[in-house]
């Protein structure tokens, strides 16, 4: 079976992110970039299935040449082929999903993994859009997965518990932390990955449905106000909640 894993190259959220001067995006100078953490679970799950049932794992990434670094990391973990989709002018989630779907169709992948969301814009919808565009079943935020033939049993996190979903291939699974323990690459894996050629294809893009107007940093937090330290302060606090903060 051909398996596709869609991965993203994202700024490390442990680092401080600054809005660029013209407010068109974030200031990428000096930012550290990483493989989107949720995508690591997606890669691991694809590799586990490949080890069990055989097949080929394709790593797809939509983005600039820097994304090759992330594709190489996935290849180092054991994925077979890497494909980078060069972004066109519009890169909203729908265009990303369209570009990925076109490749997945061309590669005839019946099982598709993504992380549950990318930690850059956190829209968390590419996986679901993919399923819709491909006409595949979809389980999002999966924390357990069993595939037997074309039967799929997945568990997903819901408020206060887990939901067990039974469906069939073809399917898109978006991975949540807990799905597995991602493996290390090995040095031999990294060297083997080095020899692989990452195929580069052009994205076919359409007019975006979402256009970002501008980026703003959150307003700096203002200092807290201490109204008092005992029961005497309660009436004043209630007044503040009503009149100043207008919470009730």
């Amino acid at each position: 079976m051909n398996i596709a894993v869609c991965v993203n190259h994202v700024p490390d959220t442990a680092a401080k992110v600054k809005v660029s001067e013209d407010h068109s995006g974030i200031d990428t100078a000096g930012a550290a970039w990483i493989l989107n953490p949720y995508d690591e679970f997606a890669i691991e799950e694809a590799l586990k299935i490949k080890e069990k049932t055989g097949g080929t794992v394709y790593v797809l990434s939509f983005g600039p040449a820097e994304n090759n670094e992330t594709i190489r990391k996935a290849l180092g973990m054991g994925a077979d082929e890497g494909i980078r989709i060069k972004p066109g002018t519009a890169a909203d989630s729908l265009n990303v999903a369209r570009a990925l779907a076109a490749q997945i169709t061309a590669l005839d992948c019946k099982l598709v993994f993504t992380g549950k969301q990318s930690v850059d814009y956190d829209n968390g919808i590419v996986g679901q859009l993919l399923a819709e565009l491909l006409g595949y079943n979809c389980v999002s935020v999966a924390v357990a997965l069993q595939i037997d033939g074309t039967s799929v049993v997945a568990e997903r996190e819901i408020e206060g518990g887990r939901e067990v979903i039974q469906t069939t291939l073809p399917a898109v699974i978006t991975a949540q932390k807990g799905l597995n323990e991602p493996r290390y690459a090995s040095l031999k894996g990294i060297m083997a990955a080095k020899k692989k050629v990452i195929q580069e294809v052009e994205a076919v893009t359409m007019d975006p449905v979402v256009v970002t107007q501008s980026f703003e940093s959150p307003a700096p937090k203002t200092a807290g106000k201490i109204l008092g330290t005992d029961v005497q302060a309660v009436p004043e606090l209630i007044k503040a909640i009503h009149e100043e903060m207008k919470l009730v």
Partner: protein
Amino acid sequence: MYKGLDYYSFDSLLSEDEKLVRELVYDFVQADVLPIIEEHNRQGRFPFELVQKMGELNLFGANLPARYGCAELNSVAYGLIMQELERGDSGIRSFVSVQSGLVMYPIFTFGSDEQKEKWLPLLASGEAIGCFGLTEPDFGSNPGGLVTKAEKVTGGYKLNGAKMWITNGTIADIAIVWAKLDGVIHGFIVEKGVKGYSAPEMKGKHSLRASVTSELVFEDVFIPDSNLLPNSRGLKCALMCLNQARYGIAWGVTGAMIACYQAALDYSLSRKQFSKPIGGYQITQQKLVYMLTEITKAQALNIQMGRLKDAGQLRFQQVSLAKRNNCEVALNIARMSREVLGANGILDEYPVMRHAANLESVKTYEGTHEMHTLILGEDITGLPAFDN
């Protein structure tokens, strides 16, 4: 996500795969070494449980050919492995250095095809552990005077003598032992368990406590003909091995420097005395800037040394310069970091005292600071300062 120190954009000199190798070892050290290392150091115990994992990651003999199960990396990637391991602990780096540079390298370079086929895959996976016996109780800086002796007997050799300060000795499955055969130094593979061979552990170390250091004792040990390294002849061969190890040390101690610098910087920003964090005082800043500057200089040396090595242009004297310089500044940085941390610096809640203690050994082993000074002195004046 890899976090290092890169004040001069040296990362732009690294290839994608070199960075991936570094990140892999960094992740391993974060997840598997740092959580356990202080306890092992306290107990004076080598973390044996890491050997299999390091084998799976292909950390052993990482610059040797893939046909022996190795990763076939270039020298810069090899150096980065050492750097990241020693950010964890010098003892862990020493284990990998010995296995790679002092056991696998001589078998690969001086061994027969049979020896390579038999031992290199086992050493690469960590199924077999090796050690290297050159230094003797009375011959440290002048190994040419060593007295361990091999005599030809029917079907092999009879080995007598003793070695000292041998990393991994007690836990090793094979020892690469250097002994004089008719007055000429040769390398032999001595296998664990042969009659007359013992490897007692040396106790009481205040340094490299998470590493095994041993004596090797040979009393009429029979070594079959097939265990002579056929292409090893003369002290030069043993010194070639040390040159590999020194190369790794120059990179390795840079990792210890980064660990100590980061501990000092973090602490200086959180520890308040009088009106502000101690990082706001001039004396602390001077220390931090010394560390930053020396680390940056060491990084410059390392990367150029690695590129020269891959181009086949690296002279052993250049390795001496980097080993000598980097060990000295690493020890200075570790001590300075301890000062920044004040009394907290002596606790094993922080890594700096462990690094400082370890680096005392690292400055001395694989050619003392003093011997590297004399190697360089001879190189620039043409006048050897030691007796030949």
